[in-house]
């Protein structure tokens, strides 16, 4: 492979594709997440700092498939407010639990008082919404021979993609523009881009973004059928890596275009989006789409590749994904990138992962931490990008977070201190 310098090189077509104007940074006032590592930012910081794992052996009731998963404890005990009982399903329970973390719901309420409920947008990502509930209705239908799937399927408020946004919109008392983005594993990341545009276009003054996805049989058995599910904890960038470990997770952030600086002073500085035009379930072997997403993210932040202090990789642990991302990172950043993958902690939270890892990036920026790469003992020598193995404190100004999904849908985000904008 030809080694490229830090700025890489661009074909005429790639040059013409580059975003001409930096975007207006979107301030991030509050953020939270709930994954197998715990509820809220603090347990995540602790687990990342201490290299404490979150995955456990998990076999679905439906089939004797060996896997490790990032399970969120306590969801069975979560109760939605009585007025929103129709939304009850595992996915909305996880949304409910996560919204209570780090004072997030209270901060949204304060923003609602400040901006008005109709001036707060809501952009959320999920790959499967409440499909776990649908699966249980199918199971009951075939095992108990019940007629149909049952009225308690409550399709619109559990199964439908919109159910996630509908639940959170009602729960947070918002009445502004809202939608669900579902682009597989880039969903949660793309909500940040959509919100920045909505703020820039004047559609809203603040925006709740994020992603929520929960464990279900169709996804787990689907990845197993594709040969992409690891029987052991996933080892991103590892030699002999065997695939992903699935996790469930939820992450939220509150973005504002302008206003008073918060204590953290963190912002979304840039984003880049692209598609591969290559294959429905395999990434482009040279990471073509990933390269253009990362370059567009840098351009829209108005910075060059060497201004990035840390890259939170998509790093799923499948042979093809990591190879493709490595080629792409090498083309954009050369071989000096400081990078790691955090899915060894949380599992791959799929439609939520872009938001979960965006919030992990924000925690790392705030706390000055470069997370390591959990579970991977021997890195694949075929891969150019050398990953950080052990978590270590280090001041950070700008972080890039990658999220790449099935059907070749790519998104890269740049976060940083607002003073860096």
């Amino acid at each position, binding site marked *: 492979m030809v080694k490229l310098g830090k700025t890489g090189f661009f074909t005429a077509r790639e040059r013409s594709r580059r975003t001409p104007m930096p975007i207006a940074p979107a301030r991030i006032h509050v953020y939270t997440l709930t994954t197998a590592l715990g509820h809220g930012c603090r347990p995540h910081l602790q687990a990342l700092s201490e290299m404490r794992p979150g995955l456990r052996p998990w076999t679905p009731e439906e089939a004797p498939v060996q896997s490790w998963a990032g399970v969120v404890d306590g969801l069975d005990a979560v109760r939605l407010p009585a007025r929103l009982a129709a939304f009850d399903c595992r996915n909305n329970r996880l949304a409910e639990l996560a919204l209570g973390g780090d004072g997030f719901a209270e901060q949204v309420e304060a923003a609602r008082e400040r901006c008005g409920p109709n001036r707060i947008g809501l952009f959320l990502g999920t*790959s499967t919404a409440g499909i776990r509930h649908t699966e249980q209705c199918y199971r009951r*239908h075939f*095992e108990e021979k019940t007629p149909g799937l049952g009225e308690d399927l409550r399709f619109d408020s559990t199964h439908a993609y*919109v159910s996630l*946004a509908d639940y959170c919109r009602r729960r947070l008392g918002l*009445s502004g523009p809202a939608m669900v983005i579902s*682009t597989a594993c880039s969903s949660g990341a793309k909500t940040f881009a959509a919100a920045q545009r909505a703020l820039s276009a004047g*559609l809203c003054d603040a925006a709740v973004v994020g992603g929520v996805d929960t464990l279900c049989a*169709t996804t787990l058995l689907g990845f197993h059928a594709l040969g992409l599910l690891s029987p052991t904890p996933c080892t991103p960038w590892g030699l002999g890596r065997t695939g992903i470990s699935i996790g469930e997770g939820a992450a939220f952030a509150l973005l504002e275009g302008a206003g008073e600086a918060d204590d953290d002073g963190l912002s979304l500085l840039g984003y880049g989006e692209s598609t591969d035009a290559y294959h429905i379930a395999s990434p482009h072997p040279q990471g073509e789409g990933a390269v253009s997403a990362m370059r567009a993210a840098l351009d829209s932040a108005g910075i060059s590749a060497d201004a990035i202090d840390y890259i939170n990789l998509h790093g799923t642990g499948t042979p093809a994904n990591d190879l493709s991302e490595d080629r792409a990172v090498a083309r954009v950043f050369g071989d000096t990138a400081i990078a790691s993958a955090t899915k060894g902690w949380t599992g791959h939270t799929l439609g939520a992962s872009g938001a979960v890892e965006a919030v992990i990036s924000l925690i790392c920026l705030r706390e000055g931490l470069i997370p390591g790469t959990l579970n991977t003992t021997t890195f694949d020598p075929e891969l150019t990008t050398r990953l950080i193995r052990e978590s270590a404190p280090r001041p950070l100004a700008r972080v890039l977070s990658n999220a790449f999904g*099935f059907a070749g849908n790519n998104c890269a985000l740049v976060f940083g201190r607002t003073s860096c904008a």
Partner: protein
Amino acid sequence: MRLTVSGIGILGPGLADWIGARPVLAGDQPYVADALSVSPPLGLNPNERRRATLATRLALDAARQAMAGARSDTAELATVFASADGDMGLIDSMCRDIYEHRVPPSPTVFQNSVHNAVSGYWSIAEGCRGPSTSLAAGDGTFAAGLLEAATQIVCSARSVLLVAFEVPAPELLHPHRPFDSAFACALRLGPTTPGEDRPTLDLALCEDEQPFTPMSDAALEVMRRTNPAARALPLLAAIAAGRSAVIRLPYWPGLQLEVRLEPGA
């Protein structure tokens, strides 16, 4: 937010393409609810073409119509795919495999079940590497798609292809999402330029609740009311008739999208 329409595609029973549907939607010809006829997605390799579901074929057909005669190539074009529930047949197939047949789901069905599979097939068929967003907002999905496309145009000053599609649910899910007509439409949208002679749309969010613009034909009105993608029909009908119009589209309860249409030359 102001944008222009430079290409249109439509597909549904009795609505074979934009050229054929135009006099029907304009009220110059009666609507006849014919069988659905969808072109095969020629840009895909034979294997992918064979596996392409109705949702994919429908969306790609409408998208290609909207891009016909486009001066710029599609390689960099940004796309927005709007569908409330995606391909429910694939969800049904996976759940039946697991709970009825007690076998693992088909890997092909699983990979096609992601909401953005249709976007992925468009990108593969056209060699299009531009940004693509697949979104949903229930019965307000078309309005959400139009708003997202408009927002991208305002921010980037570049064209966006909006595709809305919805296919009927299979037997077990049908009572929960009851409609019978598949429908797709596509709009090639762009920023306004001086001296423009194309239809122009002005979008505004409205909190007052006005009646939604209906279709005058009873069968098309049923399609509009039941299929989330067909909520676009009154807008397409006004464009077909070449008249100024103010159209109210459903978005969220208490929030409607108002579209002011100027027909252009």
